[in-house]
């Protein structure tokens, strides 16, 4: 079960982080279009930082949730 939890957790965390990064990208691109202060460097660097923090957060949340689900099953 431990292996399953680990596998599902990595998958869930990566998907969650990618979703957050995509959202960030969508909003950031709009900013680049609307304000000269924003550059693509800001967007890409921001995406990297947001992905890093999202991974840390979701990797802390998902294992517990998945373990509970697997136990119930």
């Amino acid at each position, binding site marked *: 079960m431990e292996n399953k939890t680990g596998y599902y957790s990595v998958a869930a965390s990566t998907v969650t982080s990618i979703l957050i990064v995509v959202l960030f990208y969508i909003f950031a691109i709009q*900013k680049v279009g609307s304000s000269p202060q924003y550059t693509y460097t800001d967007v890409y660097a921001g995406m990297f930082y*947001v992905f890093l923090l999202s991974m840390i957060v979701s990797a*802390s949340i998902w294992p517990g949730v998945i373990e509970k689900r697997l136990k119930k099953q």
Partner: protein
Amino acid sequence: MEDVLIKIKGMMCEHCEKKVSEAATSVKGVNKASSDHKKGQVKVSYDTSITDLEDIKKAIAASGYEVIDEEEACPVPVKQAVALPPVKEEAKSGGIQKTTLKLTGMTCASCAQNIEKVLNKIDGVKKATVNFSVEKATIEYDAGKVNPAAFENAITGIGYGVAKPETILKIGGMHCASCALNIETALKKTGGITSANVSFPLEQAKIIYDPEIVSIPEIKKAIENVGYTASEKVDKTEADREQRARESEIKKQKINFIIAAALAVPISLGDMGRNLGWAFVPEVLKNDYLLFILATIVMLFPGRQFFEGTYKGLKHGVTDMNLLIATGTGAAYVISAAATFLDLGEAYKHTYYDTAALLIMFIVLGRYLEALTKGKTSEAIRKLMGLQAKTARILVNGEEKEILVENVNVNDIVIVRPGEKIPVDGNVVDGLTAIDESMITGESIPVEKTVGSEVIGATMNKTGMIKFTATKVGADTALAQIIKLVEDAQTQKAPIQKLADIVAGHFILAVHVLALATFIFWFFIGFEYFNVPATFGMGMISPFLFSLLISITVLIISCPCAVGLATPTAIMVGTGKGAENGILIKGGEALERAQKLDTVVFDKTGTLTKGEPSLTDVIAIKGAENEILKLAAVAEKGSEHPLGEAILKGAKVRGIEIPDAQSFKAIPGRGIEVKFGGKRVLVGTRKLMTENNMDITPQNSRMEELENQGKTAMLVSSDNEIVGIIAVADTLKEHSKEAVSELHNMGFTVAMITGDNRRTADAIAKQVGIDIVLSEVLPEEKASQIKKLQAEGKKVAMVGDGINDAPALMQSDVGIAIGSGTDVAIESAQIVLIKSDVRDVAKSIRLSKLTLNKIKQNLFWAFFYNTVGIPIAAGILYPFTDPPFLLNPALAAAAMATSSVSVTLNTLLMKRIKL
């Protein structure tokens, strides 16, 4: 005439002894009866021509105690402090499982039957068998209906124990309370481990495990797998090893700090000098490549520990403060390196090498100071460990031989000269000396020791040479027990720590969420809304860099170190200070409960009073006082009655010579009749005198006066003429009155509980100033009396010393045992007063309050730092200040380090307070 030993069940104290002895002596033909509640027996001397054993047994049974045949004897088992897990569990098909429990507390085959009976009654148990000789219970049960915890409850519920193997491992590499939680989580997930308690300040893990499922090397591996080190604790060299480990950590962090500081200064000058245009800074220092090299050295050497810790943690899905620091410093370093080597645009000309270097410098400084101060909080244990003598001199075939203290065996004859330490516990067999026991009992005046006296290992022999028989060695010595008790207390978590643990456990996650939210807010909203490019004083800056700086500051300032240190350091210093003063507090829960007490109940006998009668009054009606006392002492010389012993002792104290009487006759329930100097001497009750045709009316008022004072008064007659009155009473301990008055001053209601009659109890209570007197309480009713007080809403502390006090000690909110009391009382209590000084009751409560207040202060400051620091770090002041205020990440690191150090220093202030 025949002497016989009768086994009795149900005797709990001296009152019971008295009752049983009186019941036996009330039988015509019984000359003498002396009971011993500890051995559960009564020794009866009787005339076989007048009575028989059955009549005596009937009389004893009529007094309310059970007479048992020796082969049936099954003493009440002592409840073990430990209890736990199944030794083996085997799954069987169809949900039926089999488990084996290792049992403790069984003394005979009927104990095994009792356990079997109670186990078989549990719903879901198919079959339970208990083997007395191997002390194991094998249970087949339906796992769907019942779990092994129910078996343990059932067994402990009837007074037996379930043994558990326990080990303590030294843990290395922990940096905060989250690390301790990570290890606990990893251990609890390991099969075969039923309980794991990791102490961050003590750097040790207490683990209860099943050796048939998991081995010590496997446990160590589980700890190492999450990035920490584990080693078995060797008690013998523990003090040295702990000291070495502490010194090594201090040295490591000191070197790290020196490197970080030496590099952070030029990096900061260069980076800030270039950004702010400082002309005094040499151009060479402003070079990006040089700054990159210097910052890389900082990251690789002093900073490596944070990245290593993060990597090890993440590999196993755990997070700690290393992650916060690694994310913060890593982000600052990476963005600066990118700006150095890549062309990211005009807004990316700034580098933040100074931020990364200063962050690491301040955090390493914090760790260095923390290592320095943390060592001081566990000083008490180290002091205790250091007290142990290294060698002992024993007699082997009449010759002295010096051996290592751990090689001393029980019954060895040990020789100790003046100025030497007593190596182990024992009984003096030769010599006279004074021993300084202050290191164990806190008592500053040396105690005189002579043949028969007990000596305690680790105390200092002052004046004479003594020989003693070793009675307790190794882990059984008083010192080893004290160390274990203090260590256990320090490893246990106080309920208030749960809050800190919850916060510390979820803090890292919460901080990352907060850092992400802060970044997103400033990137999308704050940067434009507050017109940062125009208002921020650092020139042109990109939205990403600005938001990143704020986000890093939030990560750095939020470290939960201080929250994690707040409770355990205070408990360590509090329990350590207690141990130094002869007060052993068994864990944080006792400290917390003591805070809420409002009523202190004292057991009378042995606690407020000396527990043994002594001569109080000699009233001469005819002749001199000493003559009356001599007559009484001569009469009592052949008696084994405690009252007789008190009279004899009193006479000896007055220097009276006590010759033997010509004949001796004990008159059960009345007194004694002897022939002395040709005269018939009677010592005893009014009834004895009236039955011998003496008029007691003139003495009645004096007798009553003495009895109203709680004394036992006896008449003395010579040749059928009353010549005097002798009174004996259980006298108050020297400091009882002072102890009660101190508790009154602290606002406590003081009660006294005793089996004595109302008159005696009131007399004693009046002398010490007791508020509530609970008299004529049978031993088994003491707990219910405490319960009654609790039902009235009172928070009750019970102070006692005897086996009969144990249930009341358990029932009370805080049980306080007098150190000279029975082992059962000491086990049942949460606080033990080693010095047996009742004044220490107030001291122990004061210490508990002091410790809890310190915990509260620490938690307040720890939370205060974060509560105030996080919003400021997140830029809450930016819109409201002119020029806009933003907390520098380096300042955040300094504040974080300060919070840990200030919490520890605040705790250490406790050491200076006199109890």
